[in-house]
């Protein structure tokens, strides 16, 4: 396969082969990282970091999994490790003070930009479980293994995250239909 050939050349330090591998997988890597970390600037840095690490460790890639899968795991690990480190640095939940979404379209199909804005506003701990499960399609088992927690914790975090998402997506100008009395809690 052509990709195998590119990998062999990249292992030998061939820059153009590396560039081609990048072109093939750039979207998937960037997307996974971007969804997890919640902002463009950080995603750009970490996506680059993931690629640099991938090339540094390419020697270790023996082809047990598809290259794309290997790379995807590495990239999500780079993002998750960053979240872990930054959450230790400050216990203040990012996103707590961010402005609320001003207008949400509670249409049959959820407006995409509103959805993405809401994901980005989630506290990092909620965001990573929501993104891994609902966006990236990981199982609770997989998430638990990666975050070193129990599947039960992963589940309860997910439900809390979704509840928070729903709150963030609540239209400000709520119609009668939307008068669920959340304020009373």
């Amino acid at each position, binding site marked *: 396969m052509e990709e195998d050939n590119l990998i062999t050349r990249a292992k030998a330090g061939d820059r153009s082969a590396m560039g081609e591998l990048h072109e093939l997988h750039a979207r998937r890597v960037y997307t996974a990282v971007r969804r997890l970390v919640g902002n463009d600037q950080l995603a750009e840095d970490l996506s680059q970091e993931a690629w640099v690490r991938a090339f540094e460790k390419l*020697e270790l890639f023996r082809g047990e999994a598809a290259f794309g899968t290997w790379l995807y795991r*590495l990239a999500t690990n780079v993002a998750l490790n960053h979240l872990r480190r930054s959450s230790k640095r400050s216990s203040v939940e990012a996103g707590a003070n961010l402005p609320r979404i001003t207008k949400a379209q509670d249409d049959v199909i959820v407006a995409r930009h509103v959805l993405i804005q809401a994901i980005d506003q989630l506290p990092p701990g909620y965001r990573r479980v929501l993104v891994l499960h609902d966006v990236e399609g990981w199982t609770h088992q997989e998430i638990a293994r990666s975050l070193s927690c129990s599947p039960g914790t992963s589940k309860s975090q997910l439900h809390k995250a979704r509840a928070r998402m*729903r709150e963030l997506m609540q239209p400000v100008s709520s119609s009668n239909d939307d008068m*669920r009395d959340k304020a*009373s809690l």
Partner: protein
Amino acid sequence: MMTCAIKRVCRNFGERYRQMNQSASEHLTAEQISELLDEPRKDKEDWLHLETCEECRAEFERFSRIRMALSALPDLDPPADEWTAIEAKLDSKEPRINQSVLGFGWHAGRSRLIFGSRQLAVTVAVFVFAVGVFAGLQLPGPIGFFAENTLQPGLTAPVVQDKIALNEPTELESQRAPIQQAGTSAFEGAEFEPVRRYEGRSGLLVLRVTPRTAAAKLGLRSGDVVVDAGNLPTRQVPDLIQAINASQGSPFSVRWIRDGREMVKLWPSGEIRPKE
């Protein structure tokens, strides 16, 4: 008189507060609704409430739509100059790279060699650990052996199966097109988008249905996820066309998920019914 008025206000407030609390405790919480989304009949009482309470049902549907939209988020383009930036970083790291690659290559090779023999593995692991510490000390900066090691993909990362192939997003984009093939019927007038692993299955999310078209007659609504047509899984738009072709004009079943329930309908005739 003054105190009387205050008392009345207080009483009124207390009354209202009680009412508010009561109605809040009767309804399902957001988290309960989210649980039902993943495990529909997990809690019979909650599910029963959902079936009878219009408000909670509407809320459940909102959750369901959010869930579906999440699973259908498209991939993003990195900045156009990403590769240039990566190359620059590779250039600046060159001397360090060789050193670390040596260390890891050795480590990985060793652990693979001893795979299968536990006793030996422990012994060698201790040795590898010691070498690791040594290598870590050798590396400049805070990113030593340990930081790197936690990132080793094979160790901690989950297995993500049936992940959409990596260069597919563009293909997905192109699929987001209405089906307008003449005479295909059944799905004509609907716009689809592939979703991954929605409730454990892949399918085609219905984005829009034009009224009075075949798709509308079939009973599709936006927000539905078509999972199967003619007993063939529908993961991509061409699967629908294939199902129609395979039917050769005879009736075939279409299966979709609506708000966590599976619906089946026979095309061109037959009732919509949730599957039990």
